[in-house]
């Protein structure tokens, strides 16, 4: 568990820079002697506007970490914030609304509803919320992902790569604070996979989105800004500006040595450097995600 004062400090200091944060995040399965710790007191900050990859061998807890950060799974102990909202302790209904309005999802497979066409799938979270999509933004997302002439197609009429692009567009369409991608390239051939990774990169660079991607593919991780390595339920290492080779090398050490816990202090990336940039954010409590992020169109 993190100290309340530290959490409080961060809370006030950096809502605009930190998209999601966990302190002492613990997830245990089973009870008594058969307890398995999927996550063991993890502290993590996901920086806004960056592409973060989470890597680790099978059973390292990387998917569980994503699920807990996204409000899909409950935690055994610890706290999780999305922006400045503590999501641990939220009720089911509030969590659902949070996922709907503030988080985008991409899964490995079965991302789309077979009965809805591409456009309907893309706007689904907003339709569910009963909100009108921001037309200008939607057009831009569709064009960025090259889906203009596929909008009326049903998922069955799309290739695997196209389907993942639609999923990516859906994740982006509501302009969420955070996009979680769980092995988004796992079911694709390498070319289609590269394409999807390229779009996620573009989403961060061009559209100023925040992406967290769980993957076991070093090549995919190389597209990110920062790789977090998980082993035995802890964050054991991290790597800025990764390359496929370096990630692969790091992963090999899991095979030979197992999880090597590295110094916890290394982990937070730009936190200390940037913590004093903003002391207070007036609209920190606003539920509107757009209000907190910088203007996504400013680069145009």
């Amino acid at each position, binding site marked *: 568990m993190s100290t309340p004062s530290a959490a409080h400090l961060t809370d006030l200091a950096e809502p605009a820079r930190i998209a999601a944060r966990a302190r002492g995040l613990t997830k245990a399965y089973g009870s008594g002697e058969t307890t398995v710790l999927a996550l063991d007191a993890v502290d993590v900050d996901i920086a806004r506007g960056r592409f973060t990859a989470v890597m680790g061998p099978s059973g390292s807890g990387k998917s569980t970490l994503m*699920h807990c950060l*996204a409000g*899909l*799974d409950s935690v055994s102990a610890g706290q999780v914030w999305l922006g400045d909202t503590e999501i641990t302790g939220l009720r*089911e*209904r509030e969590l*659902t*609304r*949070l*996922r*709907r*309005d503030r*988080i*985008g*999802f991409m*899964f490995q497979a*079965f*991302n789309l*509803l*077979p*009965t*809805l066409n591409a456009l*309907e799938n893309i706007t*689904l*979270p907003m*339709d*569910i*919320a*009963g909100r009108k999509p921001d037309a200008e933004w939607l057009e831009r997302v569709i064009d960025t992902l090259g889906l203009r002439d596929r909008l009326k197609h049903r998922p069955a009429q799309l290739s695997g790569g196209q389907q993942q692009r639609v999923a990516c567009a*859906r994740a982006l369409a509501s302009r969420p604070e955070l996009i979680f991608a769980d092995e988004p390239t796992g079911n694709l051939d390498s070319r289609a996979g590269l394409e999807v990774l390229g779009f996620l990169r573009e989403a961060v660079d061009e559209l100023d989105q925040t992406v967290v991607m769980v993957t076991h593919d070093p090549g995919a991780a190389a597209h990110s800004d920062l790789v977090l390595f998980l082993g035995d339920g802890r964050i054991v290492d991290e790597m800025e500006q990764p390359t496929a080779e370096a990630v692969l090398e790091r992963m090999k050490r899991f095979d030979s040595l197992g999880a090597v816990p590295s110094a916890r202090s290394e982990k937070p990336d730009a936190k200390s450097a940037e913590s004093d940039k903003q002391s207070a954010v007036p609209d920190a409590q606003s539920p509107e995600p757009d209000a907190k992020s910088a203007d996504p169109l400013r680069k145009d």
Partner: protein
Amino acid sequence: MLKATLRSFFAHKGRLFLSALAVILSVAFVAGSLIFSDTVTRTFDRLFASTSADVTITAKEDIDEGIPSGLVPTVPAELAERIRSVEGVEGTHLDVGVENITVVDAENEPVGPTTGAPTIATNWYVTDRSPVELTDGREPAGPGEALLDADTADSKNLEIGDTLTVLARPGSFKVEIVGIATFTTTNPGAALVFLDTATAQQELLGDPEKATGIAVDAASGVTDEQLKKNLAAALGTTYELQTADEQAESAASELGGFLDVIKYVMLGFAGIAVLVGIFLIVNTFSMLIAQRTRELGLMRALGADRRQVRRSVMTEALLLGLVGSTLGLATGIGLAAGLIELMGLLGMNLKATEMVIGWGTPVLSYAVGVGVTFLAAYLPARRAARVSPMAALADIEVMGLGRPLTVRAIVGSVVGAAGAAALIGCALAKDSAGAGSLLGLGVVLTLIATVIAGPLLVRPVIRVLGGAFPAMFGSVGRMSQRNALRNPRRTGATAAALMVGLALVGGLSVASASMTKSFDDQIDRSLGADFVVQNSNFMPFPTEVTEAAKSADGAALVVRQRFVPIALTLPDGERVESTASAYESRLDEVAKLEYTAGDTQAALAADSLGMDHAFAAEHGVKAGDQLSVEFPGKKKATLTVGALTDLPGSGTFGPQGGVFLGFGTADKYVPDGQDSAVYINAGSGVDADELRKGLETALDPYPQVQVRDQADYKELIRGQIAVMLYLVYALLGLAIIIAVLGVINTLALSVVERTREIGLLRAIGLARRQLSWMIRLESVVISVFGALLGIALGLVWGVAVQQVLALEGMTAFAIPWGTMIAVVLGSIVVGLAAALLPALRAARMNVLTAIAHE
């Protein structure tokens, strides 16, 4: 292979449960009706066999009584003396009994059962065959004394010393209860009043020299048959002679009419359950097989041949049938026990402990249960056998999803066209027998066609039905509409179960609305009287009642009507047995009649009659013809055809031929009849309310008759038709229950199939409530689809039925829009109810497990 089959059966037992329920219901109704009727038949066979005299002598009924005339057939009492010397006769008893009599207590309340079972007044004598014994008080001796049966005394709180009034044909008389007789056998539900023999002869028959029958005991060593032969030799063919066995048989068959109704109702329920259940079973097996396509493909890949796959599915069906039949049989026993209890409440104290389960019951139960399941599983099993080994590798969402519906379209249109042709033929047919069979054929064919073509209608109809959903319910509405469209076969089959029941209801409610309207029109056209006094079950009443009505304040004109059994020998040589109505001469003032020949006065003149012109034309009768006519008791007469009537619907609203004659003519040949109705007009200056009050006061001692104006009379007729409707609604209820099981089944399996989709939707933010609504709306759209299909089909049937009714004179056509709208609204409720559990199940799914679901 058997092991794999068994494993699969138990693995899917949850899903098979709903199908099993359909099997259980149908078997339960089959078994229940058989057990019930066996039990009742056995009980009454025993009762009648043990209580009938060795040989019974009664008057011969030479003309069948279509409508009760109130005549009591009698034999001369001296017959008992005459046969005493016949060889083999040990002794004789006079039977003096009148059924359907009215007995009232001091408050003028009838003591008879309210269930329609008769009140019987009869003479008291004790033999070792008597079904009753004196348990309290003493035997009746002389006028003014009577015994009452214990069950009636109990239910009406009567005891020894109370006074009863018996409203007999010769005149009402008072009796004091001097004793209580208790049934030693099963009480069939009737109320019994016992008088001593002389009193019974005098008061019930009005003639001390007559009896209704003579019970003859055989001397020891003489068989019943021998005795009957001896008596026949002595008496000739004037009287009806029956041995104890024959008597029991005919008594049981008389009772049988009522029991048959119960039996057929139960079998109707069983039929509906089977019909609707088949859809449920077909759908369940289709879905189970669709879900197991990969598994079946794997079995095929591992070397199982088609026959083995098919056999494994059929074995599963067999198991389901066996389990369902066994449970159904048990439920049927419970159902029969319940019915027996219910009969007890109605006064027929059968004993559940004496329940009879003949060998036919389990045989038929298993035949129905296993047969239906087998039949229903056959097509899905064949489809399962066609699964290719490649299916093990392919990723098919639902088998049969993409297959075109061309075959269905072709077969559906061919069968549908044949059905439509039959219905059109029925509408054009000229005689009702031909029309009836064409109607049956048309109904069956159009039903089959709709079931086959149902999936084809899914897309267009649900597009329209659910068209407003996206606008009304947003994306939840859109998804539910799309989900309903997803597998037209499944949606079609699910809706078909609902359709069958609602089509029946639709057709029958159109028919009954049309009948009601026809009767209303007929009453408006023909009834001219201010009031009608009659018994609600149309039983005749003593002349005393008529006299009371005549003397009522404000009554100016009273026209009596009675029914007379009649046999006409027509010019074309045909002998027609019918019932003629006899009216007093001022009929024109209380009825509106039209004639093609003659007039009312000519028809009602002495030794004349009138008849329907169509009937007359058919048999070559012309006005002025002399017809040879036979009345009960072999009385022959030659009557002149005085008039031919032209009344729409005369074929329906009365007995065959629409024969009517003057009251005097009837009285001349059949002097002992009773009036069935009296028509009354108010005097000038007397308003209707005044007359009604006067009549009700005057008729207060006669609770068996009621005073009705035109509106009341229509209500009475409607009530008779409504009885049919209640049965229809009960059938509908059962059909809906099973159809709901089908919708639940489909939704539950769809929810399982769409687990990942549901997980995804929940992950991206679909709230539980929205998810539940998505499933509910899908359910509603399926149900409403079924309801619309059913109503449409029912309307078509109704139109055809009305055409057949029109041949019978019921020319009016009415659509009960209220019922139709209620059915559609009801189907929305049905949809919501069916979605309860599946929606709950979907909402409870764990998001993460659902996403990871394979």
